[in-house]
Each structure stands twice: as structure tokens, then as C-alpha cells.
């Protein structure tokens, strides 16, 4: 198969120490990448280098180590901004997507009034629902939710009727972490802008898998996490258009984010420091930059093409299993396969797959409202990354068949 040659899997997999781990004496087949991805040596050593060679705080110390750390930290900002085609000042480091969304809900939400509306979708991760829900209780603005069609896509007709002149903010997930749907964000961005609303894209599940160009998209804000794209946990990104960020109130207050402090009043530092209070996650930022350099070297286009073929193959192979239901759209789906096997609870499948070395996630995937709409308590989720192989998909299929046999069902 030609597409397999897009990436040199053998060489790539050598760089990921965890992929050589054995689980229950079986070869690990890691298919929980939507939860978090594994880390290549390049990322691990960038963090080790920081802590063993130049660990120090940034921006403050006038000494060699601080200078080195500051330089690497600034470089990390640059690497991220280049990766999504943003300007340096427009990249804020946060602890992850959750903090980025909380920052936006607090900072933007507190400017709204009770006649305003915020439009979300029913497929949001809890992290893009609860911050708005709680701000809405406090401020009184209304929440509206775009539903889904029977094939698991966003109901764009409903989107058109819900996004009106009363809409001040639209905050939508790019790729569903639960069922893999790729939402038509360009269309949503245009809808929001035509209504005069600000639009936020939760790109936690898309930035790791496809080329994202914030200028081309013209989105106002875009947020993602480092650990879902080979980087360490505890580092994430908030992209925002400069003019919008400049006019927003800070979210966290403290050191680094100030210009001048008096006992009664303070003024804020320039971007991006205005939103980066306290000592930042320096090693996290350096690790994320190393991850981006690694991804860029392999090429996001190659990654996207390879993963598409891998997902198609997985979808085909899983469909051959009797009693399996796969959720989400057949087309417009990213690296997530969410499914159930008749008569077996998702947690039981997950446990039995684990016994075969196959790591998946079972449950509601932090999307309880979506599960309710689909009338499910949960699903089994196999989520892929570019280091997964076609043979691992076969391993998944074998393990599901074996799980069915344990429960006494025919394959």
C-alpha cells in the first residue's frame, strides 16, 4: 500500500520508548491518543536538558542560566506561533485547553449582559461547556446549543438559525473527542462574523493531526493542549487576535503580567505576558516546542494523509465484526473510532482489550450531553496517531473478537 510509505514507521517508532513497553506480557498497542499521546526522545531530552543544564526562572534573573532559559522560552513562543501561522504576541501559554477555555469564558463572559447569547454545540467536551455554564449563571447571558444530525455531524441548518445578532460568542469544538466528527469551522467562523460575534475554536483534537492556519481560518481564538501532540502535560496554548487580547481583562493576576504596581492600582504588561501570570511552565513550553519541531520535520500533510488511510482501514476492519456499532460520520471523521459491541459494556471491552495489550478508553469521554443525545451510557474509543500501524489495527480487531468470545458471543 503506497500510503504506508508516506511515513517511515519503523524509524518513527524507534523514537518513542513507551511503544516498546509490554502490557500483561503482550506488546503494547496504544490507541488512547485522544486522551494523551506518547512522547518521542526529542521531547524527553529537551526537558531533561533544561533541568540538567540550564534550569532557572525566565525574564528576571540577570545571569547566564536565566538568559538561556528565557531564550528557549521565547523560542518556544515563536515555534508555536509559526506552527499555526500566528504572530508572536498572539500566543499565550496556559496549562492546557481547559485553562485556555476558562480564561476566555471568564474574560470575555464577564463583558456580556443578560440579553446576550453564547452559542455552543451539544458535542462540546465538558471543558468547553462548564466554564460557559457557570459564567452564564453569574452574568445571566443565555446559552444556545447546536445539535447534531443522525449521522453525527453538526446540524448546520440549526447553526444558521441559532447564530443571530444577539449572539456575542460562538465557541465550538473543531474535532469531537468522543466521535471524531470534523466540524465545518470555516463555515461557522463566517456565520459568527456575519452576525458580529466572536468565535472560539477548541482545536485540542485537530492541531495534533492537521495543518491549522489561524490567519487563513480568520478565527478569533483557538485553543489546544501540548500533551495531545507529543508534548508534555501541563502546557497548552491560547491563540487570540492581537486587538482582541489587548482589549481583554487578564484572567490570572500576579508576577510577570504587570507593568507598574502601586498599592491601589496596577497596569498590565504587553502581550503575551499580560495573560501569563506567575512563573510559567518553562520545561513544558520547551518540550512543546521540541514536539512541534518533530511534527514539522515529519510534515503535517504526510501525517494527515497517513492517518486518513489508517482510519479508513480501521473503520473497514472493525465493521466486519458482528454486533459492532461505530458512531460518528463515515466521512469528515478524524482519528477517533467510537464504538460499542452488542451485549458488552464499554468498560468490560476496555478491560479485556487491555489484557491483550490494547489501550483504549471506555466511558463518556467527558461529553455526557452528547452521550445522552446518542442515548448511550458510553462507548469504547480507539484513537490513533501517526505512529500507529496497520498491524496494530489488526491487533485491535483480534482483541475485540477475543473479548466477544470471553462473553460467549460468536465472532
Amino acid at each position, binding site marked *: 500500500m503506497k500510503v504506508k510509505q508516506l511515513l517511515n514507521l519503523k524509524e518513527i517508532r524507534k523514537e518513542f520508548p513507551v511503544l516498546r513497553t509490554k502490557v500483561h506480557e503482550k506488546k503494547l498497542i496504544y490507541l488512547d491518543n485522544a486522551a494523551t499521546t506518547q512522547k518521542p526522545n526529542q521531547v524527553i531530552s529537551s526537558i531533561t536538558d533544561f533541568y540538567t543544564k540550564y534550569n532557572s526562572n525566565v525574564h528576571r534573573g540577570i545571569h547566564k542560566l536565566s538568559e538561556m532559559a528565557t531564550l528557549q522560552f521565547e523560542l518556544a513562543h515563536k515555534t508555536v506561533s509559526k506552527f499555526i501561522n500566528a504572530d508572536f504576541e498572539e500566543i499565550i501559554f496556559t496549562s492546557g485547553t481547559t485553562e485556555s477555555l476558562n480564561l476566555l469564558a471568564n474574560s470575555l463572559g464577564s463583558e456580556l449582559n443578560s440579553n446576550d447569547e453564547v452559542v455552543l454545540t451539544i458535542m462540546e467536551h465538558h471543558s468547553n461547556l462548564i466554564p460557559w455554564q457557570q459564567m452564564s449563571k453569574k452574568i445571566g447571558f443565555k446559552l444556545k446549543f447546536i445539535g447534531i444530525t443522525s449521522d453525527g455531524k453538526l446540524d448546520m441548518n440549526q447553526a444558521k438559525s441559532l447564530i443571530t445578532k444577539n449572539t456575542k460568542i460562538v465557541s465550538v469544538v473543531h474535532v469531537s473527542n468522543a466521535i471524531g466528527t470534523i466540524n465545518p469551522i470555516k463555515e461557522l467562523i463566517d456565520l459568527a462574523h456575519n452576525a458580529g460575534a466572536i468565535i472560539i475554536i477548541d482545536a485540542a483534537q485537530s492541531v495534533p493531526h492537521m495543518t491549522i492556519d489561524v490567519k487563513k481560518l480568520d478565527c478569533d481564538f483557538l485553543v489546544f493542549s501540548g500533551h495531545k501532540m507529543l508534548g508534555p502535560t501541563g502546557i497548552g496554548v491560547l491563540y487570540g487576535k492581537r486587538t482582541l487580547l489587548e482589549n481583554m481583562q487578564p484572567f490570572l493576576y500576579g508576577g510577570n503580567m504587570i507593568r507598574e504596581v502601586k498599592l491601589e492600582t496596577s497596569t498590565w504588561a504587553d502581550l503575551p505576558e499580560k495573560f501569563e501570570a506567575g512563573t510559567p511552565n518553562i520545561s513544558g513550553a520547551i518540550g512543546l516546542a521540541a514536539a512541534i519541531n518533530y511534527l514539522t520535520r515529519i510534515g503535517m500533510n504526510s501525517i494527515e494523509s497517513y492517518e486518513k488511510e489508517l482510519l479508513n482501514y480501521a473503520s473497514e476492519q472493525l465493521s466486519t465484526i458482528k454486533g459492532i456499532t461505530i458512531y460518528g460520520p463515515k466521512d469528515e471523521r478524524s482519528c477517533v473510532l467510537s464504538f460499542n459491541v452488542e451485549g*458488552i459494556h464499554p*468498560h468490560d471491552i476496555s*478491560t479485556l482489550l487491555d489484557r491483550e495489550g490494547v489501550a483504549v478508553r471506555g466511558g463518556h469521554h467527558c461529553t455526557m450531553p452528547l452521550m445522552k443525545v446518542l442515548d448511550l*451510557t458510553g462507548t469504547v474509543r480507539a484513537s490513533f496517531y501517526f505512529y500507529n500501524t496497520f498491524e496494530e489495527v489488526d491487533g485491535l480487531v*483480534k482483541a475485540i473478537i477475543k473479548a466477544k*468470545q470471553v462473553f*460467549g458471543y460468536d465472532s
Partner: protein
Amino acid sequence: MIHKFKDIVLIEEDEIYKENVLDHYKNPRNFGSLKDYTFKSKEFNSSCGDEIEIFIKFKHSKIIESKFIGRGCAISQASASMLTDILRGKTLDQVKSIHKKDILELLGIQVGIVRMNCALLPLKSLHNGVNRYEK
């Protein structure tokens, strides 16, 4: 590239899905609700959406009937089936002295940290019911 999966060998005894557990899951004992219960109690496992509601009927300070309804994984459902099976004839104090180790003995399997909540959900439901009833 066509693969066949017919030649899979089943391991004789899987540590977690023993026949006993699967039997209780597929053919749960005491499944259903009671109308004339002394108390009932419902518990959820928010991480997986499992739910168990237990119905208890007392006569002369002893349990004469116990039933449950709910949905969830094999571990939580088998645990509820087995637990409701041993309650007949027990006093409130005896019910209170049922502990985690008793449930694990009933199940007869190794339960890891992640699945422990599933195994203990029925007992939690029962004990919370007892606590509320005593108040």
C-alpha cells in the same frame, strides 16, 4: 491484505471475567424492583454512567427480600446480583458489617484500582440506603 482471525486461542481462565461473574451478569439474580420495600437506594458511578438501585424489605428486623435494578458493566451488575443473594436473613448490623473484602471474595476475581468503583457500587448503594434509613 486480508487477515483471518479464526485461530485465536482462548485463555483457559481469565482472572477477571470468570464464568461465575459472567453467569451473574447474564442471568442476574434478584433483578427487578420491589413495591413494598422498607427502603431503597440508588447510586451512580459518574465516571462510567453505571447505576444500581437496591430495594430492601425487612420483617421482624431481618431482611426477607432484596432486589436490584440498574445498568452497567459485568463487574457492577454481577456484584449487585451476588450481594442481593446473600442478604436474606441478615439484620441491619450484619448488613453494615459487609465490607469491601467480602464483595471481592464473592466476586472471586482480582479487581484493579480503576475497576474497584464498579465492584463496590452495589455495596455503596446498600450502605447509603442503610444510613438514610437509620436517620
